[in-house]
């Protein structure tokens, strides 16, 4: 008999309970019950695949698990399975995403709608297991959709939405549902789950236009494209990513109908009359909200713009959301040595031509804590911000 360290709540339990981000995502996977899940263990993602394995071992999910010998093979198997005609998923972090990155690009180009649960973790080196967003940034131009969760509830909700986003005929792209490693993946918080059958009917049946296993109608997947066609194929891939913005509206609208929780590709928090704003990805948004509430109590006009859709980047709606703001601080949890930090570069493009001061901060690399004081300092510095300034580091020793 297998040794068990954790008692699983009964499958039929619906409603709010205490779950970590990994557990919440594992429950979403159990409820979706994909045909194939190809995985390889890596911290801090591992609790997801362990819990899914136990669900399967106990007959609570019917997913065929492929315990691959590397993330490269896991993603490759997921591509094979997804194009064969089976709903397919994987999960990874950090070096795992780095190892599979070649295949992430190929999956996007082959229009394989694979759902990827990502627990963000710093890339080596030095080797580190804690959160930053350098792994996601490595996948920035891969063609995979990237959705960032603020907490375990969002990780669960986005995971339930993910198959419909990925498999929409106008999209057909890999979708990464990103949660901050440890901060979300290993921290328990109240999470409200939908009923199993509500999730099943929400995600519906998996369909790809040309399943490889249709032997009556043979198709060639992954051919060789030379200069006479490559460019057009890549352009079509870009169009698919752009289509996600509309698809998101439909899927998030339906999801709000089922769950009562509406989501946009970004969230404007107390921005209406704000003159200063912070822009950030992931769990830090929760910390910023606390500081915004606190400063609002003392009459300061501050707000937050949380980026949920990092790819596609909702450029226009972000610019509209910040139209009344005088100064903006962009908090990046990754570096791009030799250039602006990744989120800053995109925000500068989004706000181009707008009369707004833009300040760049880098924080939290390799899991370094970001405290309330750091965020208060950012809002204070935004009071006097003019134009553009050099990057500043939060929580970095001199």
């Amino acid at each position, binding site marked *: 008999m297998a040794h068990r360290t954790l008692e699983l709540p009964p499958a039929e339990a619906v409603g709010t309970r205490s779950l970590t981000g990994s557990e919440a995502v594992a429950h979403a996977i159990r409820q979706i019950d994909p045909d194939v899940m190809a995985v390889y263990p890596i911290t801090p993602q591992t609790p997801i695949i362990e819990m899914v394995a136990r669900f399967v071992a106990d007959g609570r999910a019917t997913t065929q698990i492929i315990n691959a010998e590397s993330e490269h093979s896991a993603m490759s198997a997921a591509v094979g399975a997804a194009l064969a*005609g089976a709903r397919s998923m994987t999960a990874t972090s950090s070096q795992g995403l780095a190892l599979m990155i070649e295949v992430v690009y190929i999956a996007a180009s082959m229009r394989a709608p694979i759902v990827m649960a990502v627990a963000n973790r710093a890339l080596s080196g030095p080797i580190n297991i804690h959160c930053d967003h350098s792994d996601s940034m490595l996948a920035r131009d891969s063609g995979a959709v990237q959705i960032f969760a603020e907490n375990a509830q969002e990780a669960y909700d986005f995971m339930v939405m993910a198959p419909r986003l990925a498999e929409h005929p106008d999209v057909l792209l890999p979708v990464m549902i990103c949660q901050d490693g440890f901060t979300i993946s290993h921290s328990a918080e109240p999470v409200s789950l939908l009923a199993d059958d509500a999730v099943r009917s929400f995600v519906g049946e998996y369909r790809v236009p040309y399943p*490889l296993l249709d*032997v*009556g*109608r043979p198709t060639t*997947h992954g051919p060789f494209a030379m200069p006479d066609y490559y460019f057009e194929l890549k352009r079509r891939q870009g169009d698919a990513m752009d289509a996600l913005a509309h698809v998101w509206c439909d899927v998030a609208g339906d999801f709000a109908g089922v769950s009562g929780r509406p989501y946009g590709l970004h969230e404007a928090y107390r921005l209406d009359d704000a003159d200063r704003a912070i822009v950030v990805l992931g769990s830090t948004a929760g910390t910023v909200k606390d500081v915004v509430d606190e400063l609002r109590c003392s009459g300061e006009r501050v707000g937050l713009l949380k980026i949920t859709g990092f790819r596609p980047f909702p450029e226009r709606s972000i610019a509209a959301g910040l139209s009344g703001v005088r100064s903006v601080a962009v908090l990046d949890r990754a570096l791009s040595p030799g250039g602006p930090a990744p989120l800053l570069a995109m925000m500068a493009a989004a706000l181009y031509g707008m009369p707004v001061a833009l300040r760049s901060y880098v924080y939290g690399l390799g899991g370094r804590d970001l405290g309330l004081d750091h965020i208060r300092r950012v809002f204070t510095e935004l009071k006097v911000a003019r134009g553009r300034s050099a990057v500043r580091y939060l929580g970095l020793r001199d």
Partner: protein
Amino acid sequence: MPSLKTMARRERRQSRFQGGHSLCRGCGVPIAVRAVLNSIETPVVVVNATGCLEVATTRYPATAWNVPWLHVAFENAAAAASGVETAYRALRRRGALPVDGPMTFVVFAGDGGTYDIGLQALSGALERGHRLLYVCYDNEAYMNTGIQRSSATPFGASTSTSPAGLESFGKLERRKDITAIVVAHHIPYVAQASISHWQDLSDKVARATSMDGPAFINVLTTCQLGWGHEPRLAIRIARLAVETCFWPLYEVVHGRYRLTEGPLRKLPIEAWLRPQARFSHLFAPENRRWLAEIQPQVDREWEDLLARCALDASASDAAREPPP
């Protein structure tokens, strides 16, 4: 076992692999592909590693494949095939296949995609026990990128990254015994075959695909460009590899070695080396001592193989004897 007539009928009726591709004249690869595909009764799904075969047969928007075909990358054909085969089992179980019924999953990969960059994915797929036939078309170097040495390249061969020169006699190292590595995975069927012996290859494909588990066949496949021979000599040169015992034809069924076709007479290795430009430098006087090393290598490997076959034959004879 499929006869020549059956194979010809399949070729005519199903034409699983069609002409009009851009593989070289005298290339051994399409010979291997046709022999394999025409030896399989069920519908076939092909997974192809990056290489000559992939590049020359699927230049978008054309394709030479009249069967479902998938290519993802160079090093991951076995992994991608694992996903396809698993999807098949998952969909079949819940009655969701587009066309129900048995299917055979065939991987085609070159020696570079098998011995070198794809070895890990191959090992993983074999260990996990996916029911697929992995066919390595072994032409003994990276031919697609211009004849660079691989770990399948034989000792002494001159390639673009192991060139013979004033200080070098070509590749300094012996080739890897991939068959033994695959056998170590305890899979039901492993074999070595050659494009020159189509009936032997075809029989092996039939046996391989009847197994309940992974199967691996390493097919010696000539490359007129990389080996440096006249295109019309492809089959003859492949045959010489068998007749000199450089490339014995054998199979390993559930761990038991068996010679499937022994040479009528064992020719000296020079008979195989001499018609190939990649070995021509070995016949220069200053390289004679390296040439002289090759025959003992071949002899030792051949004797080892015979010994293993004999041992396994007597073991199965013993197993057949009634208990006292």
